[in-house]
């Protein structure tokens, strides 16, 4: 058996109505095997109702070196958070 199967990222929907969430990654020869492996590795304790798999190489990630220009400009702009409204008491779950 080939030792270096490609890496896959696994996303699991915990229950209907919730979004798929990243659960982890594993190795598999192809998508079908990735689904079976994900089922065995991540969902045998009733964790999910749906699985997505995507080969890790298809994910484009931002470069941590660019964190300054990407994210820091937002740090001093607190007005971008909607925290300056007085909410009536009757409104719940905000």
């Amino acid at each position, binding site marked *: *058996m080939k030792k270096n199967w490609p890496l896959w990222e696994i996303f699991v929907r915990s229950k209907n109505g919730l979004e798929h969430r990243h659960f982890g990654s594993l190795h598999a020869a192809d998508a*079908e*095997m990735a689904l*079976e*492996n994900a089922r065995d590795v991540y969902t045998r304790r009733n964790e999910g109702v749906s699985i997505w798999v995507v080969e890790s190489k298809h994910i484009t990630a931002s470069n941590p070196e660019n964190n300054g220009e990407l994210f820091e400009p937002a740090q001093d702009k607190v007005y971008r958070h909607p925290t300056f409204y007085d909410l009536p008491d009757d409104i719940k779950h905000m």
Partner: protein
Amino acid sequence: MNKDLYKYILGLADNCLILGQRLGELCGHGPSLETDIACTNLSLDLLGQVRSYYQYAAKLKGNDVTEDDIAFLRIEREYLNVLLVEQQNTDFAYVMSRQFLFDTYHLLLLNELQKSHDVTLAAIAKKSIKEVSYHYRFSSDWIKRLGDGTSESHQKMQNAIDALWTYTDELFHQTEADKMMVKQGIGVDVTKLKETFYNKVSDILLEATLVVPESKYFQKGGKHGVHTEHFGFILSDLQYMQRTYPKMQW
């Protein structure tokens, strides 16, 4: 106690126990982390099914006999599993071939057992069939991958299928107890599953570009408690704790 029913339950359960034990031996030794976990999952599914069967058998037996007594404290000749499930984990092709041949049979069997007049057995079958459907999907998938893989994986898979083929016919043998259970509408008439079994197996083997063995020489004995030379070694592993520390609880 209905002795035939008791024996019939052991026949069903011991297959799962011994195959579960064999798969359990792979824990930490699988070819990759993912297949290691998958094989252990198969094992745990089977052991879960075993508990349901043995709890039922223990109730029939009475006299404070427990499921553990039945699992751990019988002698070799009292285990009634087929020879197929006790075969060694020679390599991953053997593990998957053994699994595939058993799963194909197991799925057909449980499908019929759901209609049993015995409500407990019917309920166990109904609960187990979803697990076993996945086992079948998993093992038949591996047969196709390795059979239709590289020339080396193809050869290894063919070797394993050829070697294990001799244990397939026994799956469809009936003991006297089995026949009694069929007569009473409790047991499954396995002789009727034989043709479907070989058709289904052949379809997958052909899809996997493997050759369906033509050998007509078959081994038997497990259903009567006559096992292959591997069995004593399995029992020494399986029974060690209960024999050394009687009544030990986890």
